[in-house]
């Protein structure tokens, strides 16, 4: 299958390793990955902060850039949710954007959804010999309803010990511009999330969204906890031969 990768602006700029991992993983599974060069950002930050117009412009750009793709894979649950849930609203009823998104929306997947639902694999042949906790980000948990898909993928990774994260369903406090507009509350939420994660004794905190990981990871790093963060794609791409976190 020819898969279009929507890398997202945060991954593209700050976490290129995640993108490389997605490409490695999908190619290893025997699929062709394309990267439509015109892509930029999904517009979630604009939309959530109340800037609807620029968000709508980016929605139109997305629809144009990815309109012909068989499948669009996004290594970010929050950007996938933005595209699927909010783009149709941005155009208004009966608009060109909403008509286009009615076609395209169902072909846009978070990486873990794509693996489990479309490619129908849970064992992707990965090897990652570490103790890991999984943080189900709000968009993955409540907006996309990823359910147990990420857990199933992680449990199939050889060498990986999946530990239970207390208070897993609770928001980490990132929330886009919330993290600066309400910096104190955001930090307090991030602190509690980090405390719960460190308390498990895991070496890695993993999630389907690098923005949440950036926030929790920033807290872990400031506290010199020694715990590291990893996008689920990096864990799933890791093998004995090509080991991600040496």
């Amino acid at each position, binding site marked *: 299958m020819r898969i279009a990768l929507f890398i997202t602006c945060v991954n*593209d700029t700050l976490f290129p390793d995640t993108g490389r991992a997605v490409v490695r993983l999908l190619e290893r599974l025997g699929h062709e990955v394309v990267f439509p060069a015109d892509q930029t950002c999904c517009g979630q930050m604009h939309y*959530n902060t109340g800037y609807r117009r620029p968000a709508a412009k980016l929605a139109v750009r997305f629809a144009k850039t990815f309109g012909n793709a068989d499948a669009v894979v996004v290594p970010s649950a929050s950007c996938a949710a933005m595209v699927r849930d909010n783009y149709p609203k941005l155009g208004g009823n009966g608009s060109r954007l909403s008509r286009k998104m009615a076609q395209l929306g169902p072909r846009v997947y978070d990486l873990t959804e794509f693996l489990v639902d479309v490619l129908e694999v849970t064992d992707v042949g990965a090897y990652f010999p570490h103790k890991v906790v999984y943080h189900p980000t709000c968009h993955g948990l409540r907006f996309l309803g990823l359910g147990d898909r990420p857990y199933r993928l992680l449990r199939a990774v050889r060498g990986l010990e999946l530990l239970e994260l207390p208070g897993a369903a609770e928001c980490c406090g990132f929330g886009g511009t919330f993290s600066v507009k309400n910096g104190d509350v955001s930090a307090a939420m991030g602190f509690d999330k980090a405390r719960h994660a460190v308390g498990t004794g895991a070496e890695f905190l993993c999630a389907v969204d690098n923005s949440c990981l950036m926030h929790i990871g920033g807290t872990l790093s400031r506290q010199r906890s020694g715990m590291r963060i990893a996008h689920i794609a990096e864990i799933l791409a890791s093998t004995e031969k090509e080991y991600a976190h040496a």
Partner: protein
Amino acid sequence: MSATFLGLPPFPEAARAAVGDSRTRQNLHKATHTIRGKRDAVVGELGEDWQRLRSQGERVKTHTLRHLDHYLEQLEESVQRAGGTVHWAADAAEANAIVTRLVHETGEREVVKVKSMATQEIELNNALEAAGITAYETDLAELIVQLGEDLPSHILVPAIHLGRAQIREIFLRQMAEWGVPAPPGLTDDPKALAEAARVHLRELFLRAKVAVSGANFAVADSGTLVVLESEGNGRMCLTLPETLISVVGIEKIVPTWSDLEVFMQLLPRSSTGERMNPYTSTWTGVTPGDGPQNFHLVLLDNGRTDVLADTVGRQALRCIRCSACLNICPVYERTGGHAYGSVYPGPIGAILTPQLQGMSSETDKALPYASSLCGACYDVCPVAIDIPEVLVHLREQVAQGPGHTDEKALMAGADAVFGSAKALDAVQRAAGAVGGNLPRHLPGMAGKWTDTRDLPDVPGQSFRQWWNKRDQQEEEGR
């Protein structure tokens, strides 16, 4: 004069102080997690039926709001037919004037009150006090807040921010000023505290000739009003006095008695985590020789018709004040209710208050941003109010208004960068050149981040650059 929310600082500022108050945070953590657990259990035991009930609650409320004009007239007729009097109040001032006049007409100088959000919203107690009438709160938590000259911080549990030692202190210090004093040897044992309140309140119940209440529901076809409560204090107020004045928001209507069935299940499970609340009182006009002999219903608009005109925001009027969204909200858990600077705190307050009173003040404008949009509130809402959707909708209104020049500049900049892949690539190259040499503490808005968290290093090469190079190499290799 009692405390008031007016003039409190905007959310981020108030939240900073609240987050730093470890005792309050402990109280809130414990209380919200306990009630969450209870709710989960009683909602869980209904299985699939819960979502069906929830949809039914949503449908009844949406239908009623769509035909509110019809049901309001029907309610007025039914109440009058049953011997009650109906008054219409466009805003808080009108409602307060009506209640004050009605109390004056009885010749009384004091009223007992059933816990009511509507009377909190219009600050009725302050208005009565200004007119020389003393209002006694009889709900235990409202009593604590009133005695402590404090403000309520939760819809269901107004004194949730206080521990029992603090409550003991308030009782010992203040009860005597308002009536029967606290026993001198009072401990902070919950039983002892409840007993002190019981003795204090009993005298008021037996003495009062006038009661003021709200209502959880008003049934249009029968003219029946309904109050759900846990203590029985409300029922004392609703049955003992000669005159009963109920102040009720116009959105509280349900069409028929049988519609109550849905909400009698949704509300207690969502609010107190019980299958059924201990006391459900209903009253329909007046019954000679039984209960209050004069009944007045004050129907309160106070911004509700304006909210109804907003196609996205109107769903907030479905709210049945259960507090499930407060109890699940990670933001509320860390700040408590006072930080919202509004009678309605938490996620529902963040959408209801700015809609009811408009967004002219900085405090109102900050409320739609007092959420990380995690969606937990929508999940638990028994009438399926999409709170995140309304929050974003209100943020649009704030962003379109004056001010936020820094933010607008930032958004315009982002607009330019994301408007073309080339521009994005150029910015990424520039950032990559700075790489790991970002300062540990950034100025301005970004400083809110670097105060407590490290920023990731910007990698030397963006994904896009890597991809293009790889592509090129593959091309050359062919």
